[in-house]
């Protein structure tokens, strides 16, 4: 399953989505809102997205993982809207027969998402704000 949603992300949903009887490993990555950036204190983050295109890019990432690492399931969800410190902004779960493939595919998925998904992050500080990329 892949999705961009304004609703809080569910770890349980990710886990249930990629569990397979033929998979002995599930790797879960959770990106969370950090309270600092470049020495500045972050108070909140707002994410916006081109939802349809972002979901299509997630689908490509999942298809590539299935082809390169023979993954069982790939789950990618990204949240939009105003998030508080500690909130999960992205959840990726990957299952595979053995752990090495799940670790590699999950790492690849988050790196590709950061490069390709049309999603924008606006960080808010005690004074001011900034668009953050990369």
């Amino acid at each position: 399953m892949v999705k961009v949603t304004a609703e809080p992300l569910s770890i349980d949903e990710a886990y249930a989505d990629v569990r397979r009887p033929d998979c002995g490993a599930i790797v879960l990555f959770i990106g969370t809102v950090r309270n600092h950036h470049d020495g500045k204190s972050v108070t909140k983050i707002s994410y916006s997205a081109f939802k349809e295109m972002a979901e299509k890019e997630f689908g490509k990432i999942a298809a590539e993982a299935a082809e390169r690492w023979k993954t069982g399931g790939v789950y990618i969800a990204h949240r939009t809207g105003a998030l508080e410190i500690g909130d999960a902004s992205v959840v990726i779960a990957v299952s595979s027969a053995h752990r090495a493939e799940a670790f590699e595919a999950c790492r690849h998925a988050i790196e590709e998402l950061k490069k390709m998904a049309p999603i924008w992050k606006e960080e808010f500080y005690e004074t001011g704000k900034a668009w953050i990329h990369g």
Partner: protein
Amino acid sequence: MIKVAVQLFGPLAEQTGCSRIELSTTGSTVGDVVAALAVAAPSLRLDRSVRFAVNTDYAEPASPVREGDVVSLIPPVGGG
């Protein structure tokens, strides 16, 4: 003359105060649409970091645009 919609996101939407602009152009590529946009939205500042999409796929300045397409300007992304 073709009619297209242009979508602006993130910092570009903030810069221009709008997220969608309807345009007519005699051109037929992404580059032509961007040139028409520069006239329609003079406050827009584009640099080489901005990527483009036609509908839901990344595209190049030379990529074709047809009547009814949605051209998106994709400033540097920050998901994750």
